[in-house]
């Protein structure tokens, strides 16, 4: 079983328009590497030059923001659902 990754609209140019793709890896870092192998360019949009998750990107494994878990080292079990979502600046 693979890991499914939900792709936000502004990254769908890298996935041929798909809103959801599958990837492999046992940590978030490995999943991003695998995504990059299949959809070149996507990793640099999610990570900044220092290799950290960009300030205005939220990444969730299951229902949890990885900032509350182990960040890029967060384990990604088989069948996990990952969501990449632009942070929404403003208003509640």
């Amino acid at each position, binding site marked *: 079983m693979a890991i499914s990754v939900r792709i936000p*609209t502004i990254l769908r140019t890298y996935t041929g328009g798909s*809103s959801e793709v599958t990837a492999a890896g046992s940590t978030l870092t490995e999943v991003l590497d695998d995504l990059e192998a299949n959809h070149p360019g996507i990793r640099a949009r999610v990570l900044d030059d220092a290799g950290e998750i960009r300030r205005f990107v939220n990444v969730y494994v299951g229902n949890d923001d990885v900032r509350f878990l182990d960040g890029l080292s967060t384990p990604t079990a088989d069948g996990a659902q990952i969501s990449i*979502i*632009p942070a929404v*600046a*403003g*208003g*509640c």
Partner: protein
Amino acid sequence: MSTITETTVETATQHGIREGAFGNATALSCRECGATAPLGPHYACPECFGPLEVSYDFPAVTREQIAAGPRNIWRYKALLPVPSDIESSPNTEPGFTRLLRADNLGRELGIDTLWVKDDSTNPTNSFKDRVVACALSAAREFGSRVFACPSTGNLANAVAAAGARAGIKTVVFIPSNLEKPKQVNSAVYTDSLVAVDGNYDDVNRLASEIAGEEEGWAFVNVNVRPYYAEGSKTLGYEIAEQLGWRLPDQVVIPVASGSQLTKVHKAFGELIKLGLVEDKPYKVYGAQATGCSPVSTAYKAGVDAIRPVKPDTIAKSLAIGNPADGIYVLDICRQTGGAVEDVTDDEVRAGILLLARNEGIFTETAGGTTVACLKKLVETGQLDPTLETVVINTGMGLKTLDAVADQVGAAATIAPTYDAFRATGIA
């Protein structure tokens, strides 16, 4: 027709937007990297995901032109991303709320000159009517079918009411544990109030996902956020105009996502740039509840990064654990010489009573937080009590009655006789 005009028309039609739909706004630009995008239902920078903001080519605007406008936010329409005929479309016409001299509260806190900007008198009793009015205009121009938001309550009230008046379907998403009055205040205007089991950050995430999938939905604080956020500038414009076209020395503002504080600062800067007020230094202070104080925590630690938190406070309208504009709040408060402070839930309750019993204004928990932070800022020497200060009340106390219901009540229950009354000692 000149070439320039032809190009403008072409660009506008390319995106299916009528000419002048966004007034003097020219483009969207990224606050982080400066990349630009055409005016459209976009909110995240295509390069770095940073927040897109509306940029303008302002014409010369005079105080007289503004003063001749209606007594609502449309008096500032030249400075907002709305068409010049905005008043002809049904909206809730928020704004031009009272700026009250607060001498009693000032005396109590030891502040020489204190004003309360009371935004609880807007149509749905919070400052959110301002932002929603601008978002509605954008939604209309984009031809959206549905008007929606994730909300901590006040925004849902404002969206539901404005949508009803505009005759557009509304869907509002709230955390299921929200204060009952805020739920009722939305549900009376819409049959599509969706309560989500989770906190605001969960609701916000869900809304972002829906916004990415559903065509024709205008989420006021997601995909039309750049237009929405501009509405908050009117709070800053009004403060300056009501002070007789000058800026206060200090202003204290509640912080959840941080959008409102950021926009009041933007408004002051624009007024200076346009020559509508004299350039002068002013300090901006942010107020949070300790149970959800990621920005205050970062401020006090002297760091730039904000660590998200899981909120636990009675100030539910300020309960955003992952505030996307938080870093800008930090920058503004530091640059202007202000600060970010936080107070406990007990102090929030005391803040509500302090404002009510000194000025006759019943604020909700957000205002209780702000007044309590003002008090703490004075006590800790962070705010100079000899400088002219404005504190913003963003919402109405009837929506969060439970916060103080146990603290106040009848001083005595007596028989209907004069003797019984005398016995209370109140006379």
